[in-house]
C-alpha cells in the first residue's frame, strides 16, 4: 500500500470518502436526528467524541487483541465511550439529551464507528488513525449540520432556533418528518455525485 500523508488521512473524510455522502454509513442517526440544526450538532459532537477515543484506545491495544475476538473487543470499547457520552449529556445537558432520545445509545451500532475501526484503525498507525477519526467526524458533522439547517429552515423557518423566514412563510411540514430527511439527503448525495462526475474527481 502506498504511504499517504497524515493530512490526506484527515482530508479524505471531508468529501472524497465522506462517511455519509459517499460511503452512506450511519444513515439511521443522520436521517433521524437532523430535524433541527442544534440536534444535528450535538449528535455530531457525540459521534466525534466516541470515534476519536475509540480510535485512540483501539489504536493503542490493537496489537494485543487476537483476530478472532477483534469485533467484540471493538464493540466493548465503543460501547464504553458511548455510555460515557450518554451519562455525561444526561447529567449536564438534559434538554439536548432528551431531544436526541435513543440515538446516543445507538451510536454503539453506528457503522461509521465500527467501520473505521475495522477498515482503518486495525491496519494503520495510531497517528493516521486519529487523523482519520477527526476527518471522518468532521465529514459527518458538516453533512448532518447542513442537513439539519436545511430541514429546520424549511420546516420551522428558523436556523439554530433563530427565526430567519418571516411570518409570511408557511412551514413545510414534510421537512421535519422522516420523508423530508430522505428527500434532502437524497438531493445532497445526488448533487455531490453530479459534481464528481462532472469534475472527474472531488
Amino acid at each position: 500500500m502506498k504511504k499517504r500523508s497524515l493530512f490526506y488521512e484527515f482530508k479524505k473524510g471531508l468529501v472524497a470518502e465522506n462517511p455519509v455522502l459517499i460511503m452512506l454509513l450511519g444513515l439511521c442517526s443522520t436521517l433521524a436526528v437532523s430535524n433541527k440544526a442544534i440536534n444535528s450538532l450535538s449528535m455530531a459532537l457525540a459521534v466525534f467524541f466516541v470515534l476519536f477515543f475509540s480510535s485512540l484506545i483501539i489504536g493503542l491495544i490493537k496489537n494485543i487483541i487476537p483476530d478472532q475476538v477483534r469485533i467484540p473487543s471493538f464493540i466493548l470499547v465503543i460501547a464504553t465511550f458511548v455510555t460515557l457520552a450518554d451519562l455525561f449529556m444526561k447529567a449536564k445537558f438534559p434538554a439536548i439529551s432528551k431531544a436526541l432520545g435513543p440515538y446516543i445509545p445507538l451510536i454503539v451500532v453506528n457503522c461509521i464507528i465500527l467501520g473505521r475501526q475495522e477498515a482503518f484503525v486495525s491496519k494503520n498507525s495510531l497517528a493516521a488513525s486519529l487523523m482519520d477519526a477527526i476527518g471522518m467526524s468532521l465529514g459527518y458533522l458538516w453533512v448532518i449540520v447542513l442537513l439539519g439547517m436545511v430541514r429546520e429552515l424549511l420546516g420551522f423557518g428558523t436556523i439554530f432556533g433563530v427565526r430567519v423566514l418571516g411570518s409570511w412563510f408557511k412551514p413545510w411540514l414534510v421537512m421535519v418528518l422522516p420523508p423530508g430527511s430522505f428527500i434532502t439527503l437524497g438531493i445532497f448525495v445526488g448533487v455531490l455525485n453530479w459534481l464528481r462526475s462532472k469534475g472527474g474527481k472531488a
Partner: protein
Amino acid sequence: MKLGVKMVLVLMSIALVSGLLLSYTYEATKNDIKRNKEIEKEEAIKVVIKGTERFTEKQIDAKNYLLSAYNKDGKLIGYAMLTEGAGFQGPIKLMIGFDTTLSKITGIEVLENVETPGLGNRITEKWFKEQFRGRLTPIGYVKGKKPEDPHNIQAISGATISSRSVVKIVNDAWKLAKKEINK
C-alpha cells in the same frame, strides 16, 4: 500462550477496564441526573398548580405518582398526577394539576413525548396546554370549533389522535387520583 486463553484474557481485561470506568462515571453523574429529574418535576408542578411552595409525593404504581401541593402557609392547594400513557407513537408523560376537590383541572404540562413533529407534538404548545386550565373533570374534546361545554377542550387539527390521547391520559389520571384520595 494458547490462543484460546489469550482470547479470554484480552476480552476479559477490556471488559473489566470498561466496567470500572463506567461504574465510576455512573457514580459521578448519578446525582446530577437525579437532580435534573427533580428540577423538572418541581418546575412542572409549579406550572400546573400556581403558588406551590412544596409538595409531597406518593407512588401509586410503576407509572403514576400522586403529588400533594402546599402553598407557603402550608395549606393544601391541590393535587397533581405525574403520569404516563400511550400517545400516537409512544408514551406521553404528563404532569396534571387538580384543585383540592379534583373537580377542576388547574393545568397540564407535557414532560415527555415522541409525537410527530409539527403535528402531534403541538400538544406541547402553550395554547393547547392552557385550554386545560379550569376545565371540569372528566374532560372531553371537540374538533374544529371552540368548545362551549366547560368539560371540553379543542383538539389540534390534524392531530386528533394525539389530542385524544392527552384527554384520555388526563381522565385516567383523574380516576386514579380520586380512588387514591378517597381510599
